[in-house]
């Protein structure tokens, strides 16, 4: 297939070169990081009762939209997931699936004491720690955290994306090296195979 290469070229090399030119030579890196920082759209996934404070964050008094964060409906169009409180065994699968449906670069904020280490429910039999399920960028303590601290977390995430070049390096490398160590999906989604919804 040597002739084929004459006409088509090596697509991988070409794509890599184009990427290098786009991101390296023209200094698009800064634009990418800036764009990701100011367009953090949280996906609509309510895991627990912190959702009331999350809703208040985007209410008129605290107005999270002023940071460019717009809660959005589907995971495919978003780049931020906010774990709003406790994650139960049943919900863990939904969290994981939603995370996998989001296109990268994507970020995660864990909200509330339950998302840190279980909080009030640390010895409950039905609660998992969200950092086992998906990689988390920012933790917000509090039970529930005040809307101000949610806004603070968004600002902190923006700062981190811009200062550490998270988004652009993620796009350049194609993956994020420090963010792949979570338990396998089967740990959380195995029950879905065994549970049988009513046959149609």
């Amino acid at each position: 297939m040597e002739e084929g290469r004459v006409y088509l070229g090596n697509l991988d090399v070409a794509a890599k070169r184009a990427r290098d030119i786009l991101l390296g030579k023209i200094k698009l890196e800064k634009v990418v990081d800036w764009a990701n920082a100011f367009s953090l759209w949280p996906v609509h996934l309510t895991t627990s009762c912190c959702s009331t404070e999350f809703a208040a964050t985007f209410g008129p008094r605290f107005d999270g939209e002023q940071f460019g964060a717009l809660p959005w409906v589907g995971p495919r169009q978003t780049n931020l997931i906010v774990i709003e409180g406790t994650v139960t065994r049943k919900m863990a699968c939904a969290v994981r699936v939603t995370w996998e449906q989001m296109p990268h670069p994507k970020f995660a904020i864990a909200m509330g004491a339950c998302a840190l280490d279980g909080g009030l429910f640390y010895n409950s039999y039905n609660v998992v720690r969200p950092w086992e399920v998906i990689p988390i960028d920012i933790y917000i303590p509090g039970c529930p955290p005040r809307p101000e601290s949610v806004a603070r977390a968004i600002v902190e995430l923006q700062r981190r994306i811009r200062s550490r070049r998270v988004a652009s390096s993620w796009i350049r490398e194609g993956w994020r090296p420090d963010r792949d160590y979570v338990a396998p999906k089967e740990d959380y989604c195995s029950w879905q195979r065994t549970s049988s919804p009513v046959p149609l």
Partner: protein
Amino acid sequence: MAVHEALAAIIGWPPIWQVLIIGFIGSLVVSIFAVWFERKAAARVQRRLGPYWASPRLGGLLHLIADLARYAFQYPIIPRRVDVVPFLAAPIAGLIIALLPLAVIPFTSNPSYWPLPPAAMEYSLLIALAIATLPPIFIIAAGWASNNPFAVIGGVREAFIIVAYELIAILGFLGAAAAVGSFNLVEIVAAQEGFKWLILLNPIAFLAVFIAIVMSTSAFPFEIPESEAEVVAGPFTEYSGILYALNMGGAYMRRFVLAILTVLAFLGGWQPLTPGEGLLWGYILPSIVVVAKAVVIVLAISFLRAVYGRYRLDQALDMAWKILLPLALAGIALGLIEASIGVV
């Protein structure tokens, strides 16, 4: 003929640069501005700030640029279960065809800047309408290619809505054409000389057309195909990254193009300006007037989000068939009466 001359002729051909400059660049700017206005106006009504901190001096306009850039660089996911070719082709084709009506719409009465030869201009309204009703086909295709229950439901809803609004839009524009007695957009504009705008003479037809535009571009209160409370993002549920941006941009661009058509048919086109000779007076200034009027319509549609919820599908269809269709027919009748009396 040398190659570069041929290229220059093609690029210099009025339909092409009309589509490229007014169509692509103009409507991109207008859509970004319209989305910004939509979010900002809603925020004002809702007693909050809206997008702000990316550019406090511009009132957060750069947030929209950031959204666009983020979509452009985000990794587009193509799920394994989709039908790849229509999945990729639908948003691109939809966007291009949404802009194509601009290739036949005149922005001036100066014949040297018309996109079509004068003979073809006779039917410019009909050609523009014919093309303008095409893009929803690609939305349905996008929904079906996604192979996702929500996308399929969204596509079906879009199909229902198309059938309802298409007829109304065409009949509404026919009301304008009937009043003037011509399908030539230049003549329709010329007939509105001296503030005899058709919005004043035939408000019924204008109302029908306006609501049809709102319905066709799924703006509130008819945001039914993308109604997030039941079908997530409707036909675009599986789209991510730049493909989704194309889809969303397509809706706003379609709104803009239809608004331009409405401006020509009802709002007096480039009047009160009278196009003269030369590029500036003959083309650029008239088209700026037309675009400015179209932007007003687009912003008015955007503002509806702050006031209304959304109708149910069957209620919207009810309204379309039982109220708007008779309204549009009445618009035609009114136009014919006016034409026979000689008001226009």
